Each structure stands twice: as C-alpha cells, then as structure tokens.
C-alpha cells in the first residue's frame, strides 16, 4: 500500500483520539410479573465511550452506576453497555446488569427514536427485566427533562483516549528520512538490575529501503553492562507494533532474542496511568518538530524473563516504562531521564538541541514532566521548554557524569541532578536517517536527586524530595 493511500485511510496514526463521558439519571417504574404493585426505579449512570459520540453513526459505550428499586434493590455497582445510535439505527439501547436481593438481573431496553415524536422518543425508555435470560418484569424509565437536562448536558466530557496499546502502532507512513523508536527501560527491584530494549525503524533520507533494528542491554548490579544488537531486518509493517525478525513489540508484550540467542526475552507489560506527553501533545499528533517523545503509559509493570549468557532475570511486577519517539532523527545533543518516584509519581525529562540550522546554536530545550498525585507539572510542556518567549525557560547542563536540570514556574521550582557513573553506563553509536552518527551514553542504573520546592510565605520551602539510588533511567547523547 502506498504511503499516500495509508495516510488517507488510516486514523491510527492518531490513536489517541478523544472519548465521551456523560452522566444520565432516569426515573420510572417497574412491575414484576409475579407482583401486582408497581415499584419506583431510579437509574444513575455514568456512560463512557472510547470515541467522540457521533450523532450520525453508532457509538458503543460502557455504563457504570447505581440502580435503585424501591423496597428491593440499591446496587451502586451496576454495570452495562449502551448502543447509542439516535439517527443511524434510531435506537439508544441500554443493557445494565445489577444485583437485587442477591439475584443477578439485567435491565434491557431501548429508546426508539422517532422524528414524529422526537422528545418523547428520546426520553422514554421502556425496558424488560431479565434473570438468566428469562423476562421477569417490565417497566418504563423517563428522563426528567425539567430537572435533569442541564446537569445532563453539563456532564458531557470528551477526554482523550487512555488506551496505551493504541500508541504502539507504527506512525511511519513511508516518508524517507524518518526514524521511529519503541524503547522500554525496566528496573528489577529484586536484583537491582536494569534493562533496556531499544527497537528502531529507520527510513533513510536517500529513499533506500527502510530497515528495522535495535539492541537489548542489561545492567547487572554485580557485573559489566551486557548488550547486543539485532537486525537490521527488512521492515514489514506490523499493524500492532514493531517487528524485526523474531523481535516483536506488541501491546502488552515484548519478545525476541539477539546475539544468536545469547540474549532473549519474553516480557509482559502492564501499563499503568494515563499517557504522558513529554513534548506538547500536538507535536505527537502533528509531527512539526524534528522529533517528538511520549510515554503510552507514564509507568508500567513488567513480568517475564530476560536471559543473558545463561543467566535468567525473572521479572515480577518490575517498574519501568515504554516510550515512543517519532521524527527526523536524533538531536544534536540531548539528555533524557525517566525516574519512577514511587507512589505513582513519575518524572520524565528530555533536554535537546536540534540539528537544524539556526536552532543548533540555542541552549537545550528542556521538556520536563512531573506527574505527581495524578497531575502534571508544569501544566503545559511548552512552559518548561520555551518559557515566556525564552524568559523563565528551564535550563539544563548536560555534561557527564552528573547533569542537571533546573527550572521554576510562578510558585514552584525544581532541581534535578542525574549521575551516570561510567561503570554503569553503556556507550552506543546511533545512526540518523541522513547517515549522521551520534554517541549516546545510557544507564538504566543511574542515580538521581530531585528537589521540588514551593514558594510560600516569603520563602522557598521543600515540597518533595526524591533520591533514586541506581533506579533512574538516563541517557546523554553527543556528536
């Protein structure tokens, strides 16, 4: 398939589309077949879909919420699904499972949308109640327009997708002079060893055949760094991720071998947390900058085995992260840090100097993302990289063995010190799509010290401080 065709047909290049979330409350009645009385029913649902709801199409959505039936049930753990198709199928179907008196029940009904009675047909939900597939009662729920319309409309949100697997799909669409990277770094807490799996697609700028290659490296606590390259292999587009010979990256799975089997690995990945865009999100969606970096999940857990030279490292819930890079090539100089700060907090830094004329003379642009208590700081990545037209931007000093990043916003400031001891650092040669070379010095057993301060009552006070002893993942690249 040609590049032009794929770019037209695929939206998978932008897998991180938005979803839809809204809340809905309906009130009504239920008459059980074996009863003569009518019970009052209240249904409170939070509905979420993986895509922006389309009025002209059909949207499948999940529903969670609470079902209350007078004198019988109050289940806050109700779950179900919705088929929202008001115009295409003229139907909005609800299937909600809940428990009443120990009995597992399913409410199945749909609004039949009619142009002749738009309001009534969009607000009245006749339903049948089933137990084990057998109907046991019928009823009608109504959306109370007078009291619930405004809350319903105000509840609509269109959050970005949180499916890490979607980011594993290749971005490359056949253009020459591109490089795309899937890399994973892991720390084994049991042995203190670090792992680095680097998978790279290079499409040379001269238009020659793209190739897939990469390397695996292990940073044992008690020995020298061991690494081996794999590939280059002919690039065959794998819809779900990366493939070079027997080395594959799929959503939730990393496997392969290198150095004729001396290193081989089979690791399952459990993503945790929302995606973390180190560069501004728009850079990833619209590749205008020379390259962009992001993490499908800010932190992940790894299970599996990594064998090198007869030694097997068994991972069980090992912390780490996978990241993605897509762009024209490596920076002129760069530094990178991934620090799992514990308790769900993560610090990700990329400081880079572009190779492009005019930009290469500038100091490093620092992209710093601190995810703490589920919130990202600075609020926008551009703030750290560019400041206010350069003023107040974050600064980096990328000399080894200890490199630093400092920066401040209005009420916070941060200082990061990363130390990459030479004996725990691996030096590798990178090749750009244009044939240029760079040297990277990488350590998955780096040390880091992070100091976060907040201005309060006339002075800087420590808000948080982290010291990572051999568990930080860092890299510095030079030419």
């Amino acid at each position, binding site marked *: 398939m040609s590049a032009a065709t794929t770019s037209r047909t695929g939206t998978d290049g932008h897998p991180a589309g938005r979803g839809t979330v809204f809340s809905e409350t309906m009130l009504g009645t239920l008459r059980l077949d074996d009863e003569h009385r009518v019970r009052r029913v209240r249904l409170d649902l939070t509905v979420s879909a993986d895509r922006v709801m389309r009025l002209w199409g059909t949207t499948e959505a999940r529903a969670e919420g609470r079902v209350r039936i007078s004198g019988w049930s109050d289940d806050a753990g109700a779950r179900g699904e919705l088929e929202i*198709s008001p115009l*295409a*199928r003229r139907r909005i179907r609800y299937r909600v499972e809940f428990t009443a008196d120990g009995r597992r029940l399913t409410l*199945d009904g*749909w609004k039949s949308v009619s142009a002749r009675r738009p309001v009534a047909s969009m607000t009245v939900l006749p*339903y049948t109640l089933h137990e084990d597939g057998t*109907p046991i009662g*019928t009823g009608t729920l109504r959306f109370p327009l007078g009291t619930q319309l405004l809350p319903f409309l105000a509840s609509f949100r269109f959050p970005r997708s949180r499916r890490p697997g979607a980011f594993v799909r290749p971005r490359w669409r056949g253009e020459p002079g591109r490089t795309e990277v899937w890399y994973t770094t892991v720390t084994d807490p049991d042995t203190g060893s670090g792992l680095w799996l680097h998978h790279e697609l290079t499409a040379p700028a001269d238009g020659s055949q793209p190739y897939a290659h990469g390397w695996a490296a292990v940073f044992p606590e008690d020995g020298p760094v061991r690494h081996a390259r794999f590939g280059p292999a002919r690039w065959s587009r794998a819809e779900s991720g990366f493939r070079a010979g027997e080395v594959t990256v799929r959503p939730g799975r990393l496997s392969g071998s290198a150095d004729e089997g001396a290193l081989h690995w089979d690791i399952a990945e459990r993503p945790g947390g929302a995606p973390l865009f180190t560069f501004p999100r728009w850079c990833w969606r619209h590749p205008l900058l020379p390259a962009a970096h992001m993490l499908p999940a800010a932190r992940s857990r790894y299970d599996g085995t990594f064998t090198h030279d007869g030694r097997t490292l068994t991972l069980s819930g090992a912390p780490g992260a996978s990241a993605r890079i897509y762009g024209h090539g490596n920076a002129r100089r760069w530094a990178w840090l991934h620090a799992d700060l514990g308790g769900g907090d993560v610090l990700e830094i990329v400081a880079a100097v572009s190779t492009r004329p005019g930009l290469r003379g500038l100091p490093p642009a620092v992209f710093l993302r601190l995810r703490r208590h589920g919130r990202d700081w600075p609020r926008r990545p551009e703030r750290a990289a560019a400041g206010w037209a350069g003023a107040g931007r974050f600064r980096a000093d990328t000399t080894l063995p200890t490199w630093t990043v400092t920066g401040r916003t209005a009420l916070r400031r941060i200082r990061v010190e990363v130390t990459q001891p030479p004996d725990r650092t691996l030096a590798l040669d990178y090749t750009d799509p244009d044939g240029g070379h760079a040297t990277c010095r990488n350590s998955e057993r780096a040390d880091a010290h992070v100091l976060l301060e907040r201005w309060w009552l006339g002075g800087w006070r420590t808000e948080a401080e982290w010291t990572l002893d051999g568990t930080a993942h860092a890299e510095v690249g030079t030419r």
Partner: protein
Amino acid sequence: MSHTGLVAALIADDGTTDWPRRVPDRLETVLSAMPAAARAGFLAAAGAVDAYALARTGRTLARLTALERQSVLAGLAARPALLPLLDLLKVPVLLSAGTERMLDGGPPAGTLTRADPPLDLTPASAWPSRSTADAVVIGSGAGGAVAARTLARAGLDVVVLEEGSHHSTESFGRRAPLDRFTELYRDGGATFTIGSPPLLLPVGRAVGGTTLVNSGTCYRTPDHVLSRWSKDFGWTPADDFGRHLNEAERTLRVATQPLDVLGANGRVALAGARALGWRAAPLRRNAPGCRGSCQCVVGCPTGAKQSVQLSVLPDACAAGARIVTEARVERILVDPDRPGGPRAAGVRVRRERDGGFDILAPLVVVAAGALQTPQLLRRSGLGGHPRLGHNLSVHPATSVAGRFAEPVTAWQGVLQSVGVEEHHDAGILIEATATPPGMGSFVLPGAGGELRRELEDAGRLATLGAMIADRPGGRVLGRHGTAVRYHLDRRDAGRLLRAVLAMGELLFAAGAEEVLTGIPRTPRVRSLTELRDVVAGTGARRLHLSAYHPTGTAAAGASPQRFPADPQGRLRGVHGVLIADASVLPSCPQVNPQLTVMAAAMAITENQTKAIMSR
C-alpha cells in the same frame, strides 16, 4: 343507511317468509367489514339504483310496492350496460341472503373431530414493549408456520407475529359461516384488484393465514414447474423439492379424499368426466376424517382440515416458538451502518395502547403473504429492488353451475372435492367446488323475482370452478392497505373462456338440464352448441372472475436484476431478511399452492439454519 328497499327489490321480498327481513341487518354487518373503497362502491351503486327508482316513480325503492320494485329492476336489467352495476350489488346481498336462508333451517351443527393441539399465544396488548429473540417470523400462514417450526427446532428463540386473531375449531362450530367470513378474511373478504377486469382476491387473516380458509386441496408442485424454476430462473431449492413436499404432506396428513363424504357436487363432476373419458379423481386433501361440512372457506368446524395452526404451529410452539396475535408489523428495523452493509435488527409492531412494541432479532423471516410482503418491505425502506411487488400471479378463476333434475344440495359434502386434470397441460385446472350459499364466486343470474327463484332452487345446482395458470400480470402497489393492479393477459383470457366451455361440457355430460354461465347477458344455456356460441361471442372480461393464490411478488432467483431475493430466499440489499411465503415463488405454481409454499419455506429456512450452525 338502511338497505331495506334495495334488498327487498333484489330478492323480491313479498313478505311471505321471515328470513328476507333479516337480510338488511346482515348486509350492514358485511358492509362494515369491507374496505372503505369497496363499501363506497356499493353505496354509490345502491344510491344510483335508488336515484333511478326516484326518477322513474317519484319514490325511492323502500317506498315502492313489491310489484313496483320488480318493475324498476326490470327496467334496469333491460339495459345490458347496467348489468355489472346490478352484479356489484348482488354479491353482498346474496352473501347475506344465503346465510339468512340457511339459518332459517337452523344453524349447521359442527362436531369436533379432535381437540385443537395447544399453542403458545399472547395477544399484542400483553406483549412487553421491549423484547429480543433469535428470529422473528412475520405471518403465521403456510410459509410462516413452517419457517417458525424449522427455526425453533434448530434451537432458535422464535417469535411469530400474526396480524389476525386466533380462532379455535370450537369457536367455528358455534358461529354462523358469514360471521366467521368477515373476521377471517382481510378486508372482510372483499379484497379486489384494480385493472382490467377487476378480480375478487380473498386472502385469510388469522393464526394459520389463508390455510385456515382454503379448501384443503393439496397438490404437489408439478415437475415441469419445478424444472422451469430451476433451469430458467436459477431457483436452486427446486432441485431438492421432493423431499420438502414429502415432509409437508406428512405433516398435513395429506390423502385422497374418500368417496363417502364427497357429496353430490363431486359425484356430478366424476360422472361427467367419466362420460367424456376425461382424467378426474377425488382431490388429495389435508382433511383426515372430513365430514363434508362444506365450510372450509370459513374455518373447518370439525377440526378435520389440518390447517397449519392445527398441524405445524403446535410443533413450532412445542419447540419453543411463541405466537403474538393481533400484531401488525409496522416496519422491519434495519441497522444501516453495520459492517458489511445494512442488516435487519428486528421489527416494530403497531399497538394502540402505547404506540407499539419492538422485538430485536438478527433474523427476520417475512411471510406476510404475496400482497403484504412487498408493502411491508417498502414501509421498512427495503423496497429498493425495481421488481419488488411485480411478477404477481393470481390464478384467475371463474365458475359455472349446472341445473339438474334431481337435487344436488352442493353444500352438503366436501367443499372442493374433485379435480379434473384433462386440460391441466393447457393451463386449466377444473375443480368441483361448492360453498355455503352465497359465499362462492358464482353469482346467480337475474334480479328480483328471477333471482329469488334461483335462490329457492339453488339445491338443484352443481358448481364447478376452474383456475388457470396465468402470466404474471399483476403488481402490488403502495405501502399500506391492499392495492393490487392486475392486467389479464390475452392468452389467459382465452384460457378462461375455454375453461367455461370445458366446465359446461362436463356438466352437460353429467346430465345437466341447463348451464348457468355466469355471463350477465346470456346467463343460461341449454346445450353445448348454445354454450359454444355464447362463449365465442363474449370476452373474458364479461365473466365473473375471482382470483386465488397470489404469488411471486418478492420472487427468488439467480438474476440480481430480475429477482428481489436470491435463490436461498434472502432479500437482496440487506442481511438477515428471509422471504418465506408465496411471494418468493418465481412464477405461477399452476396448482393450489399450500404444499409448494410450505416446501419453499422449509427449504429456505433449513438452508438458513445450516448457515447459522456452521458459524
């Protein structure tokens, strides 16, 4: 509006007997069951006759004496152009008069042959607003019942939707034939086609469909018809049709009608055929233990006739199918945005109480009959195929009666008893058919005193009917109501006239004194030569024509341009819709089609269940 004057004039009520006085009320009942167009036609004709009386005498019919009424009618009858107008009035009046005259001798008693097997019935008013099923079958006639049974036996959760009501055999025994007539037929039995000439086209509407009111005659599909369907139209199920016909015959317990209850009408036909050396025999019927009640067309009062609600639907219900009665399907629900193209999602059924109910099902089997199926598909947005509703064959039919010296009492015995197949190769099938008085397609000649005498002397009449294999000249129009246009082909008009001649020949050979031709201008002939002259001098459009067995309006075949359904009965252009009724037949079956429709439905649904199981 009372029709006392009109009735008194037409049947010459001289006040000597009681029953004519009850006819106007009975007529009102009949008219109220008719569709608006037919009722308006009758009222206009009645008004015209009254206006004629007013112009001629200064008074309306109701204010005239018996003699004056007779004089007015004689004046009308003297104008041949007005005879069709009189016939339009006579049909419902004769229907009412025949019933009242019969009831005058006490209502006919029906004795149950056997109790009705149980059915799982729910009226639409009690059905939940939202439900789901594996398959919905629309219609419970010959096709729908078999489809429901096949699918239910394959383990699917099946719901059958029937527009009509359920009538038990016991309820038939309790009520007069005419009371049942207006309930069991669509439009009160007054469905007619628009065109040249107009045809009366009665179709049933009840649990059991038209099988409830047909004559029980069960012909296997002729081999030459099957061969044509397979070779010319690419309708592959015809290749293995024998197996399905055998199964249908077994289910309906089809057997040759024994002679003991055949009745004099049938014996006359046999005697005539024997004298002429023609091929004729008692018909094969689905009525073991038939007692010759002669009420097949208003529901068998003894339960002998194995209509599908007594033979097929009980098996379907035993396998789990449920029947919803009084449920008219408003539309088939279609999901237009399914991967692979539009797909049926279920049905919406009209209901007065709350606007209707929906049943979601991935498979919808349409078996609403050849007149309703195209309309339903159009209402559902599935009427895109240019040939949908076209290709309508209707078996145009006419009848003649023969007057014999001895009483025949045609309404005592089997309603449709003997088949004369001498001319079947020429597309003419003669069947000895008698009905309860007034319900047949034969219209007694004359008006006033003459008509009254015919009524009183009806016991000496034997009636024969002939249906012809027609070219598909009809088309179902519109989305609602029953709008059918039919143009009688020139070849078929010739066949109808030949059929009249053949029936006259048969009656004369059996010893008839005279033959009532059904042709208004020359209603009686006393010899075959005279009949030949009459037939030679008339056209088929002057005959009293009716039609039965509409087929072919959503025909299946290999050509996507020509046939709305593929050879497996799947409606083209949408997934999940099967056609399993008479409308799926590629052309006229040339015989009474119950077995053919059942076998076709069986073939289509069996193929579907195999496809489901192989997934």
